């Protein structure tokens, strides 16, 4: 079983959900992103999702777009992302990488998989790669022992949902709403239904992302999902802060609040 699978099992045994925190690589700088991700782990985030910044992130809302733009303007390269994965994996927390497909294809799919595995990454979340187009990635992830997290959506048909889940390894990413990333005032009504549809076809853990930003929302999602995935709200801590130190302090506070939330599932 993958390291993420082990972490999900442990959380399940403890009667809580796993907290996955997302941060773009190289935001605000390479060193700054390592510091931010390390702070998140120290404050109780279980799994770090390192997003490779991309020029055309169609699944991302304004917060992640802005952070990605800052990272790219700072000159972050794909190989820096691998260095960040390695540094954060050294904390002991499982590190999963989220990436649009073109940077991987450009790097070389098999070479990227090899280097990601060597850096200690557990696998990829691929927002714009569906299993239908993923032959090369299926082979490379098998060859290098990496997890594959494809997305399922409220609009997925039963047949597509089953097919997609069948190609996942590690965990399944359920997108809670029809839309892009970004914290929302209310959590989704569609998500519990989607999670139960996934559970009907697999024993893999299910993480729910899109729209979670507070401890209370994390608790609500923890009531029906195995993992709670938070990105924009954490990133905003850094974007909105007047200084890096204050940003890290806000990040720790929110991480701790979310960690508390996933330990108190609303059922």
């Amino acid at each position, binding site marked *: 079983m993958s390291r993420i699978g082990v972490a999900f099992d442990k959380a399940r045994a403890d009667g809580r959900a796993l907290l996955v925190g997302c941060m773009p690589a190289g935001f605000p700088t390479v060193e700054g992103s390592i510091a931010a991700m390390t702070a998140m782990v120290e404050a109780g985030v279980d799994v770090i999702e390192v997003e490779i910044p*991309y*020029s*055309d*992130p*169609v*699944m991302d*809302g*304004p917060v992640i*777009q*802005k952070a990605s*733009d800052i990272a*790219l303007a700072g000159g972050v*390269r*794909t190989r820096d992302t691998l260095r960040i994965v390695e540094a954060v994996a050294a904390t002991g927390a499982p590190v999963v990488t989220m990436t649009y*497909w*073109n*940077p*991987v*294809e*450009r*790097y070389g799919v098999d070479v990227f998989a090899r280097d990601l595995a060597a850096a200690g990454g557990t696998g990829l979340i691929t*927002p*714009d*790669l*569906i299993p*239908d*187009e993923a032959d090369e990635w299926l082979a490379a992830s098998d060859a290098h022992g990496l997890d594959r997290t*494809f*997305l*399922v*959506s*409220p*609009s*997925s*048909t039963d047949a*597509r949902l089953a097919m*997609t889940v069948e190609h996942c390894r590690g965990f399944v990413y359920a*997108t809670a*709403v*029809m*839309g*892009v990333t970004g914290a929302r005032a209310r959590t989704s009504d569609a998500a519990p239904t989607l999670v139960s549809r996934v559970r009907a076809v697999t024993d893999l853990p299910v993480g729910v992302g899109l729209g979670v930003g507070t401890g209370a929302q994390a608790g609500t999602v923890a009531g029906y999902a195995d993992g709670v995935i938070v990105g924009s709200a954490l990133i905003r801590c850094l974007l909105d802060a007047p200084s890096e130190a204050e940003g890290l302090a806000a990040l720790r506070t929110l991480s701790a609040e979310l960690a508390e939330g996933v330990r108190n599932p609303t059922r």
Partner: protein
Amino acid sequence: MSADALAPLAGPQPDSAGHFGRFGGRFVPEALVAALDELDGAWRTAMADESFRAEFGALLRDYAGTPSLLYEARRFSAKVGARVLLKREDLNHTGAHKVRNVLGQALLTKRMGKTRVIAETGAGQHGVATATAAALFDLECVVYMGQVDTERQALNVARMRMLGATVVPVTNGSRTLKDAMNEAMRDWVANVDETHYLIGTAAGPHPFPAMVRDFVRGIGDEARQQCLDLTGALPDAVTACVGGGSNALGIFHAFVGDQDVRLYGFEAGGEGVATGRHAASITGGSAGVLHGTRTYVLQDADGQTLESHSISAGLDYPGVGPEHAWLHDTGRASYLPVTDDEAMAAFELLCRTEGIIPAIESAHALAGTVALAPKLAAELGREPTIVVNLSGRGDKDVHTAGDYFGILDKEQ
């Protein structure tokens, strides 16, 4: 001339998942797959439905003003050294070939029971065409346009608003066409139940490349027959400009099976491909994934999309339709760059010899034709016949051209 714009297909087709060789396909969030499947089904059903074909054909004839003329440009021909036949898509309603695509997709939108269309636009031509069709079909219309473009194409913004559309300036990324497309995709993911994304070119995820090509392929079907009627033979070459590539595919498609007819796509070479300031995705790019499809893309060593540059806003896009990538790989069509200066020289030549002001996009096809003619004449040992897709008219470009030629009075 057949009035049936969707007669049974000739020529090469993608596989059922939209792959043209190693290109095409779907690189999209799972949330959009259901909508793409719905669209694919609606399109295939419509294609097989005589009532749809009749309705589309009637609209093209009575509303868009097609078949467009094939005009023998004698004075231009004399300067060029070839018998040049212009496919006058510039005379269509809204001033370009794009009206064919938007009418087809708007009809499909109605058939799918959707009430809202969204579109991306660069120069504003596709936005205006979409707003036009939305007005005709009583659909809500939102057009995403990079803020840089809303400023340099203010007149087209006004046209869209007059037609009842909402124009949303896009302020993220490079604030141009590719960012407008990103924003339209984001809107579509969030509103897919009632919204159709009316993509303006033969790019994007399957079924868009094949579907858009089929809605505009009347250009080539008409031109092929018109050329036979006029000259008694097929042309030696067919030329078109290539940005996303819908006008080129529209005219190429009918000729793909005619092995003696050479097909040339002219890309926007901007300030020269060697300068890096261009929009020639096939000539100066590499295979990659952008906006839902695998094709040739202008990208850096890490796969980040590069900004494109062209004097023609309509060609200023860092990707190209996947069918062109495939026609390039198979060698069936040739793709060559044309610089801003070459395009503007041909723009001026057509103005002065024929009294026709072309779109700067189409001027790239004219410039490529000027360069091609002597080579083809030497190869054939006679005057060649070349059909050029004059895909749009230049009214929208008068300010750009006026600036370029320095003919505007200072106060204006």
